[in-house]
């Protein structure tokens, strides 16, 4: 479908224009969800469980209702009972019972911070005071905090009616067991000269978006509702809120505000149904905003995990077999990304014999939500460090190890037909040839590590319209909330096709009334799928413009083409006409022109990244300093290179935080002890160096411009890359995340002796 885009010359695509929403964002004018206010608006606050695991015996709200300024209180009794089976809510498959119970607990609380009731009052302070007056009687149960504890026979059961696909009618905390098998595992291990077997534990981490969740709902007197919120998917907010509150989705309009970060964590709902239900009860607009503590305790972090991996290779470094046992924390309700993790863990390597057992396990932690390549980072920590060990045993450069075993066009893909054109090996080679990798790293307690990563990327549904205005400018309307600068790329694609300047195209992210169904901004799909819809909508406008020009010139449509940004008639006699020139004539020649397209995007291109990191480990404090970092990623075709670089750098920074310091710390009662940004320690400006980026372009044949999604995969390699670097720095193979100073100290002492670069080489 796509010509090799490296051969095409583009006028706009590949340049770096200033984003259209930029001025609003640097002046403070841009409206994020919490910036909305309406006359008569009430403020909501949520009462949350102080226990990790308990039965709710009773909830009494009468004292709270009497507090002056309190207008309404809701509990699960105000929501319809929801069926306990997978069903469609709009375009998503969900379990309505689990979703509803996560929004407001019914019968049991399953994690510290689990929502129990919501209050609407005339000020947020009064609402907060009212929470203290709500009386809840709990029967506290023992908390189950790890996958090991949850899977033990006799473990306390979180969800009494939870059953899995294997244990029949037995009560269990294992929501699902999935197995992947290929080839002959025993034969594969017998053929191996070296075998490495390790067990990894990774801690639960949060997406860490700086903007807390928010929602403003207006349930109008005619039963029509509007929700303003910062979300990655307005259409999903519509279907999920409708499902939870028991309102028809067709009566809800969702307006996506500007969003202050999502990374997957804002693809579901928490506050929107509460705001909607409170607005319905009070007849007033209701606004809810989470505090940071609520965000950490009660939104959707990603799974901590236990991964046991055994990998074998021949002495010249060819992988012959791999076996994996992996269990991921789902949180209080089923749905960890363990299956995605299982499909990613061996995806970059071309070999035959494997067996993977993947377990989705409920524990008394918040229900996990998507976090940038969900499941893959945990997995890569295991596979990419074990591969590093095998490379060392074989005496092979770690990048050569990946290149030797790397998938290419035609190799088996974990989830479908074989890979089409991909850039895995090219990203490895890009790092190998980089100034960073070629440079010498000298000094004690310093080491260099590399790792690679895979992510599927998504296609899914997007709609777009392109309006040609009488003055020759255009607007491009999509339903994809812009979380990273994507709207400028939409304008660039439109400008390219129509021969316009990018400043003559206005991009807009529309509400759910103003654009056709569009799936969530996530899965690295916006520039790919919404970009595809925009491209096709612009081409649709071109078709109509050609017809109009043909009419004006009294020629056949087939004789009119769009060439070098102008409408051109074959042969001589008619000077070419720009879109600007014909735009003023549209009204008199048939009416306005709008191009439109809706796609269920096929032809997704797989994403690969390779990361190289230099570290220095302080021999006394075991603080790890990142000295230098380079990431190479295959973007297919970079529409706006600055924003592609931005995705690569941002994902890398999150991966480094995941590697070194970020973790959920619960006490023995299951209470979260670090629910603030001081102790949930994310990287600051001072913790990171400049992040060098290498954009590899192996065009994706499935996209008209060769685009491959770039938003996620850069988060996958860093923990393994940092672990491999730490090994070379101080001779310790880390198998736990995060590799924080106390853990490095412990591992170092266990290994015996102080950190020493020389003994590292002998290990």
């Amino acid at each position, binding site marked *: 479908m796509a010509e090799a885009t490296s051969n095409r010359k583009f006028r706009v695509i590949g340049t*770096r224009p*200033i*984003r259209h*929403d*930029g*001025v609003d*964002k*640097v*002046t*403070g*004018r*841009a*409206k*994020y969800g*919490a*910036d909305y*206010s309406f006359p008569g608006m009430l403020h909501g606050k949520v009462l949350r469980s102080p226990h990790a695991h308990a039965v709710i015996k009773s909830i009494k709200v009468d004292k709270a209702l009497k507090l002056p300024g309190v207008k309404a209180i809701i509990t699960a009794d105000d929501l319809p009972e929801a069926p306990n089976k997978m069903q469609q809510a709009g375009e998503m498959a969900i379990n309505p019972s689990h979703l509803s119970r996560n929004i407001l607990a019914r019968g049991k609380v399953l994690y510290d911070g689990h929502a129990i009731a919501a209050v609407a009052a005339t000020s947020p*302070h009064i609402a907060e005071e009212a929470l203290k007056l709500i009386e809840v009687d709990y029967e506290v149960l023992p908390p189950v905090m790890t996958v090991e504890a949850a899977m033990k026979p006799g473990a306390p059961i979180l969800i009494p009616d939870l059953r899995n696909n294997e244990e029949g009618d037995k009560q269990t905390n294992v929501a699902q067991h999935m197995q992947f098998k290929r080839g002959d595992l025993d034969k594969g291990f017998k053929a191996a000269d070296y075998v490495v077997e390790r067990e990894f534990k990774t801690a639960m981490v949060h*997406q*860490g*978006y*700086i*903007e*807390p969740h928010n929602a403003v709902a207006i349930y109008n007197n005619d039963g029509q509702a509007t929700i303003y919120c910062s979300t990655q998917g307005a259409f999903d907010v519509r279907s999920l809120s409708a499902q939870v509150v028991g309102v028809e989705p067709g009566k809800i309009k969702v307006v996506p505000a*500007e*969003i*202050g*970060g*999502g*990374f997957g964590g804002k693809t579901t709902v928490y506050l929107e149904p509460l705001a909607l239900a409170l607005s319905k009860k009070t007849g007033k607009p209701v606004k809810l*905003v989470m*505090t*940071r503590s609520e965000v950490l305790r009660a939104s959707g972090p990603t799974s901590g995990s236990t991964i046991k991996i055994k990998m074998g290779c021949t002495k010249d470094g060819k992988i012959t077999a791999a076996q994996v046992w992996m269990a991921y924390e789902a949180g209080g309700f089923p749905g960890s990304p363990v299956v995605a993790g299982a499909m990613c863990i061996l995806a970059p390597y071309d070999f035959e014999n494997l067996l993977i057992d993947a377990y989705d396990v409920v524990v008394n932690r918040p229900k996990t939500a998507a976090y940038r390549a969900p499941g893959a980072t945990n997995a890569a920590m295991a596979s990419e460090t074990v591969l590093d060990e095998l490379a060392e045993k074989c005496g092979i450069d770690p990048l050569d190890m990946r290149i030797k075993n790397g998938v290419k066009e035609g190799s088996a893909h974990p989830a479908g037909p074989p890979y089409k054109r991909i850039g895995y090996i090219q990203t490895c080679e890009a790092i190998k040839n980089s100034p960073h990798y070629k440079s010498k790293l000298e000094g004690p307690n310093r080491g260099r590590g590399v790792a690679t990563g895979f992510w599927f990327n998504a296609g899914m549904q997007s709609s777009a319209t392109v309006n040609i205005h009488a003055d020759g400018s255009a607007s491009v309307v999509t339903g994809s909330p812009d*979380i*990273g*600068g994507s709207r400028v790329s939409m304008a660039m694609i439109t400008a390219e096709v129509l021969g316009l300047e990018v400043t003559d195209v206005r991009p807009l992210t529309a509400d759910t009334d103003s654009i056709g169904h569009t799936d969530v901004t996530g899965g690295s799909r916006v520039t790919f799928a919404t970009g595809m819809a925009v491209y096709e909508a612009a081409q649709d406008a071109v078709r109509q413009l050609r017809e109009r020009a043909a009419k004006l010139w009294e020629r056949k449509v087939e004789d009119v083409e769009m060439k070098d940004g102008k409408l051109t008639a074959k042969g001589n006699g008619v000077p070419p006409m720009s879109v600007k020139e014909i735009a003023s004539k549209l009204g008199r020649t048939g009416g306005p022109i709008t191009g439109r397209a809706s796609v269920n995007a096929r032809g997704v291109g797989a994403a690969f990244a390779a990361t190289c990191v230099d570290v220095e480990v302080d021999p006394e404090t075991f603080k790890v300093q990142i000295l230098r970092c380079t990431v190479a990623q295959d973007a297919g075709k970079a529409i706006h290179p*600055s*924003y592609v*670089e*931005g995705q690569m*750098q*941002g994902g*890398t*920074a*999150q991966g480094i935080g995941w590697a070194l310091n970020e973790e959920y710390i619960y006490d023995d009662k299951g209470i979260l002890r670090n629910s*603030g*940004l*001081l102790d949930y320690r*994310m*990287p*600051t*400006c*001072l913790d*990171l160096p*400049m*992040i060098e980026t290498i954009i590899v372009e192996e065009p994706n044949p499935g996209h008209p411009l060769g685009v491959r999604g770039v938003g996620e995969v850069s988060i996958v390699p860093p923990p393994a890359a940092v672990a491999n670097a730490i090994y070379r720095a101080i001779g310790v193979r880390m198998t736990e995340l995060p590799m924080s100073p106390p853990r490095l100290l412990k591992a170092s002492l266990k290994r015996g002796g102080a950190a020493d670069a020389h003994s590292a080489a002998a290990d």
Partner: protein
Amino acid sequence: MKKVLVEANINGETVEFLCEARQSLLETLRDVLNLTGSKEGCLTGDCGACSVMVDGRVVCSCLMLGAEAAGKNITTVEGLATGNQLHPLQQKFLENAALQCGICTPGFLVAAKALIDKNPNPSEEEVRYALAGNLCRCTGYDKIVRAVIEAAKAVKSGAAESRAGAR
């Protein structure tokens, strides 16, 4: 609860407002004065999204009371541009793609302005140190640091130009 009458200078204008004693400066700016450019990220002074300048010093407005603004000079992100002219920091952020979601940007701009007001020629390390109180989750800070260094140079050469013009 009786409100407090406060007079302060905000972004160069004398402003008089009423706020509750318990309202933070951040809440007062956003909910009383409709200056929603300063953002709430953590309410514990750890993320810097609420950064404003108080008498030339960077402060987390979530850690200060609205009533404490009395008699002070407050600068928020809304006060950085001069009419239609963006401050070089704002311009360089745009040119360098130093923002993705943009929620941390107001805080960074204020903290960066406070830095280059005091240190017109900061090194990369000085920039990183000064901005360590502002968290960004989207960019990995690379393009932000580049933008601040470029802006400092632009301010310096702009000041040199206006000095030259004045002669």
